């Protein structure tokens, strides 16, 4: 099964339509065949558009792992950190079921239940499949999804198909064992610990075999890759081509998280993480071959809520134990909420005018803008934004590029829970992550950051508060076009 190339590819340099997306396309998935779009339109981890409206949760029932990755440390307990592999509370399958039913009743927008760790779900087959089996019985309206390193995947593909799990994510960082040996020090395979190139060769073989078996069964596969500068950065373009040819539907290239405080091999050895620009460059390079996911928030293995938020603290086991859940009633309510959102999205899709905007000269240069957004609107105060959403406007339309976090990850036990002592340095840091942007859209902004942003060559804009993000970005782009600031020849590109 080969899917059409879709998505948020870079706009053609000289204007006009890019091959794969034309007009303001908030949802690249609109180009998909109907039966596939129907599968992903309410899945926040598969559809950029859906992640503004629908929520997901992970249950941490899978602690064991069968491989070691150099970006992972198996001591996974910090409540203040958000990154894959970290959880606060391991659950038994019955506890997980109670948690899912409680969350699904309290957050009707929750459509998806994933098992993602903190180890590898398929290295915990009994706990993982017991959870899926009972959920399929008790909450048939919840989509099930699983993510894996792929080592045990071929063995469990039929089991996955049995529980209607129609979304699987495989983390594939390489297809070359020599590169793999720099990422994976060992795997546990056929009752032995295997190391080096041989280990990587087996892992890669199983991943590719599993990918093929899933796509043959019509199960949608997303491939996650961790971008590790100097290790697999160039290689990931090849990975993207190969997994697409094998039928993967979406490629999610994520930046390496490597802090010494996390105690990982890469963290301790000083391996640099990619910059936002490096990440975007690689995503753009892969986008010619493959639909790229750019809205991943690299969430925890026990995350709850919308992407980018974590409501896990509201649903700890002690709180769930005293909640009374009437799931039959909740299911009725959930269906109403889902239908209303889908209707809203369909209406929005129907209203879109794919024509190239005649007000913008076709040779205008693209402009990168940051948005303090919430629920698809320009709805966040500059100073309250936990992340900025990055959009590129060009004559071909508006495309989502990714997000940039405004706060650093947990700095480890010593600094855990402490705020930044110096608000000035925090502001400077948040402005520095906006590098490359020319405009920041937000609902409100204070006097001081306004001045600092202008000094940094970024134009603050609070005039589109509460408007849909894509409309607001296009409106600003039109204003820039009208004032003649988008000509390719402009020596100083800055808008501010």
């Amino acid at each position, binding site marked *: 099964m080969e899917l059409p190339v879709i998505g948020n590819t870079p706009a053609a340099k000289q204007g006009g339509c890019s091959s794969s997306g034309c007009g303001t396309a908030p949802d690249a998935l609109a180009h998909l065949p109907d039966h596939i779009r129907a599968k992903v339109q309410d899945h926040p981890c598969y559809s950029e558009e859906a992640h503004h409206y629908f929520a997901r949760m992970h249950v941490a029932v899978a*602690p*064991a*792992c*069968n491989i*070691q990755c*150099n970006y992972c440390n*198996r*001591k*996974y307990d910090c409540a203040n950190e958000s990154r894959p592999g970290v959880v606060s509370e*391991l659950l038994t399958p019955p506890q997980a079921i109670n948690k899912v039913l409680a969350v699904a009743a309290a957050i009707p927008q929750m459509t998806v239940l994933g098992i993602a760790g903190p*180890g590898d779900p398929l*290295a*915990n087959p*009994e706990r993982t499949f017991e959870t899926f089996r009972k959920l399929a019985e008790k909450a048939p309206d919840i989509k099930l999804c699983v993510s894996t390193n792929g080592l045990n995947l071929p063995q469990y593909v039929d089991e996955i198909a049995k529980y209607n799990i129609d979304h699987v994510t495989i983390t594939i960082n390489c297809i070359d064992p020599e590169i793999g040996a720099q990422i994976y*020090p*060992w795997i*546990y395979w056929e*009752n*032995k*610990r295997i190391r080096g190139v041989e280990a990587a060769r087996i892992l890669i073989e199983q991943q590719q075999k599993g990918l093929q078996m899933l796509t043959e069964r019509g199960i949608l596969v997303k491939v996650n890759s961790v971008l590790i500068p100097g290790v697999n950065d160039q290689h990931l373009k090849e990975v993207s081509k190969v997994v697409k040819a094998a039928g993967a539907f979406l490629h999610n290239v994520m930046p390496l998280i490597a802090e010494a405080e996390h*105690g990982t*091999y890469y963290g*301790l*050895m000083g391996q640099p993480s990619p910059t936002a620009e490096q990440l975007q460059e690689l995503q753009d390079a892969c986008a010619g071959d493959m639909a790229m996911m750019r809205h991943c928030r690299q969430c925890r293995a026990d995350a709850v809520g919308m992407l980018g938020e974590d409501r896990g603290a509201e649903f700890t086991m002690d709180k769930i134990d005293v909640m009374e859940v009437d799931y039959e009633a909740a299911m009725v309510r959930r269906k109403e909420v889902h239908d209303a959102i889908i209707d809203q999205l369909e209406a929005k899709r129907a209203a879109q005018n794919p024509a190239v905007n005649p007000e913008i000269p076709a040779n205008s240069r693209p402009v990168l803008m940051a948005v303090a957004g919430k629920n698809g609107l320009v709805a966040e105060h500059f100073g309250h934004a936990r992340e900025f959403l990055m959009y590129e406007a060009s004559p071909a339309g508006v495309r989502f590029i990714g997000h940039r976090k405004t706060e650093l990850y947990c700095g480890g036990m010593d600094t855990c829970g402490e705020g930044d002592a110096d608000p000035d340095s925090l502001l400077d840091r948040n402005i520095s992550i906006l590098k490359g942007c020319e405009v920041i859209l937000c609902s409100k902004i204070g006097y001081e950051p306004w001045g600092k942003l202008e000094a940094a060559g970024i134009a603050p804009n609070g005039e589109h508060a509460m408007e849909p993000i894509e409309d607001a970005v296009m409106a600003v782009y039109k204003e820039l076009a009208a004032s003649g600031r988008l000509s390719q020849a402009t020596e100083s590109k800055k808008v501010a």
Partner: protein
Amino acid sequence: MALQITETCVNCWACVDVCPNDAIYEDKPHFLIEASKCTECLGDHAVPQCAAICPIECAIVNELDEPLNPPGSLTGIPLEKLKELGLYKEAA
């Protein structure tokens, strides 16, 4: 003849699932091996399974308290680096 789990264990369950003798059980603060059931996998596997999958150096030791996965053997972090960071403990 039996292996033991030390306090460096992070309770990841990996060993429990691969033990052919069901000798490993959950306990606080960490998992333990029931000595009477542990055969060190003799007769079942070429190597003890708990030590073959355990991700934590020094978490599984033999009767002489020798770690089956000594420092540096699983993460690839050089011993000098572990010493520099104060993460290296001489085997007891």
